[in-house]
């Protein structure tokens, strides 16, 4: 995993746990995303995914986000998308997972 990828996928994790994504979130970088998601999922607070700078989200990337949402929902914590880019909105709609990954209205 290159340094760039690491920075691009999960720039930092902050309170309330935010997973910041940017660039192409696809199968080529999905392992880095998984590491970041596991790290977020290990905490006991809800997660906000800041995804305004995501240029591409494919099914592999989406699958990791869904697995994170599933994990947190099992302990009554939710995952929300903040300022989703068009690419993110399109992927979520195509997969029909709006209810699993709702948009954070405070964004």
């Amino acid at each position, binding site marked *: 995993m290159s340094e760039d990828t690491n920075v691009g996928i999960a720039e930092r994790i902050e309170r309330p746990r935010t997973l910041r994504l940017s660039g192409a979130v*696809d*199968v080529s970088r*999905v*392992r880095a*995303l*998984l590491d970041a*998601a*596991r790290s977020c*999922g290990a905490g006991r607070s809800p997660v906000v995914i800041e995804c305004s700078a995501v240029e591409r989200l*494919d*099914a*592999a990337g*989406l*699958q*990791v986000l*869904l*697995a*994170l949402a*599933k*994990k947190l929902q099992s302990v009554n914590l939710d995952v929300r998308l903040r300022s989703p880019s068009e690419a993110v909105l399109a*992927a979520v*709609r*195509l*997969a*029909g*997972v709006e209810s*699993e990954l709702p948009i954070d209205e405070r964004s």
Partner: protein
Amino acid sequence: MPLTEKDLSRFEATFFEEAEEHVATMERALLALETSPDDSELVNSVFRAAHSIKGGAGMFGFEDLAGFTHVLETLLDRLRQGRDRLTPRVADVLLCSADTLRGLLDAARLRGPEPPGVGAMRESLERELDAVGGGANAHGAYQARDGHAGPQEVRDVEVTFEPGRELFARGMDPLLVVRDLLSLGEAGRVRSDLSSLPDLDALDPEVCYLRFVVDLRTAASDSAIRDVFAFVEDVSKIAIARPVPAAEGGTFAREGARAEVTKTVTTATTVRVSTEKIDKIIDLVGELVIAETMILSALASEQPDARVRLRDAAEAIGRNTRELQEEVMGVRMVPVGTVFGRFPRVVRDLAAKFGKAIVLHVEGEDTEIDRGMVEQLADPLTHLVRNAIDHGIESPEVRAELGKPAEGRIGLRAAHQGGRVVVDVDDDGAGLNVERIREKALASGLLDADADQDEQALMALIFAPGFSTAKEITDVSGRGVGMDVVKRTIEGVGGVISLSSELGKGTHVRLSLPLTTAIMDGLSVRIADQTFVLPLLSIVESFRLKPEHLKTVLGAGEVVRVRGDAIPLVRMHRELGIDVESTDPSRSIVCVVDTSSGRVGLLVDELLGQGQVVIKTLETNYRRIDGMMGATIAGDGRVALIVDPQGIARRATGGRGKEKEHAARESN
């Protein structure tokens, strides 16, 4: 008047039924062509069958089926015009095409995905076309009947897309496929099935666990929909279903209303009946209505002859009901040829596989048997024929050494015999090696070293679970998981299986089956205060028991002597756990019944009379009872259990200990 969904599904059912017949016709004619390659009428019949399937498939919008049949038809047309000759390779390709057609028909019937191997089969056909100079494109692309791809009417479809797990690793994004799919129509809605998604900690991010269900309103044909999946179909599962509209128009019915897409081949649920039979049934129903009117009129009448008229009407009802029953049962009867028809192909393919030369002789295909029985018969017969090919018939070299004709012979015959259908499977192969059976039985503990078994009893051991004398296990037979299932299946429908064999000469298996599984002739008997029915066809004789004929044999329990033979005796009340006031056998009747393990005497209290009984399954309303084949409603409205002689004999011989226990209880 527009066609309703019901009309369409009825027409579709007819299409599938006829298409199955066309495929069977094709297969028969192709097999016949191998021995008569110049018979133009045979080629014509194969062509006509393929053409009919193509026409029907196109009409109902089964584009995959129509497209495949189109290529097949083109090759057949070249054969028909004498531009190509039926070489063994072409024959193989055409026979395999018949299998592919069956798969496509099942897929169309279940609205399932295209079965695997269709593309490869189509390529084989196109290669054959190339070989005769037609070129792969000589047949042109299949055009739907209106010249456009697919039906034009807008319909609701539910497309299930289960991407292959390795799709991500291959750099493919299933969301793009979903996007393309949605572009085919409007009102699309996607649901992602996340049920296979593992826990985040166990997730392999390069494995696709997602499954998509897309509801779509589209004018695109199934074929056009499938085209969307062209690049992923080899590793994905795709199903196109037409959801049943829910109560509110325009919405989709939920899961469960959708046809399940499985590989299971549905059994035909329709029966084709000649109009002559239908007319006869309508006439009889008319007679019943007249008789009912006569009864009502007689009941309302105060004339002195009212009673006579009532009796006449009752007699007419009885007569008409019996006739109606026979006619209706006749509707369920189908020629046994419907199951025999598969064997020429089975024999051809397996003989080639084992390098044997075998000719199949089939007789009595027109013998009629209950439709339900035909379905039960197919698997056991297949196993017997496969066994004959694999173990029975020797290789041509061995046969030559033995002075036998190089070509082995398998016979498959059916005939009516004494109210039953008898099916014989025989071969002129190696026969059963009784010594090897004995050794194997001793080694596997099925036989005691000091047991003195005659040849017939030793041969019957091949029906024991897990028994096989095959030297090598093949994928056809030899795992010892067959003959016991064959026996159980045949006995399960009230049949009897028997076997004879001569070393070096061949083996003969006989299946004796009841004509129907729905109605049978029964003998009502009393056991204590309860009525039971014995199948009349199983009963050899019945007589009052004389105490001097009753013996107890060590290890075999009670036996009754009948003209010098010792027959195991089953005291039915003990076996069924019914308390009786008297156990004096001299006041009881012995009914001797035939079972595949020999004759058995069933001790009952009284014979009440015989008649036809309608068999009701116990499982539907209660549960299965070992030793009982079903139940019927007696004339007084009470339920009477129908005894399964095979089952009761098996149960009795396995439960001697229980019998002793009951006897001890009785003596206290």
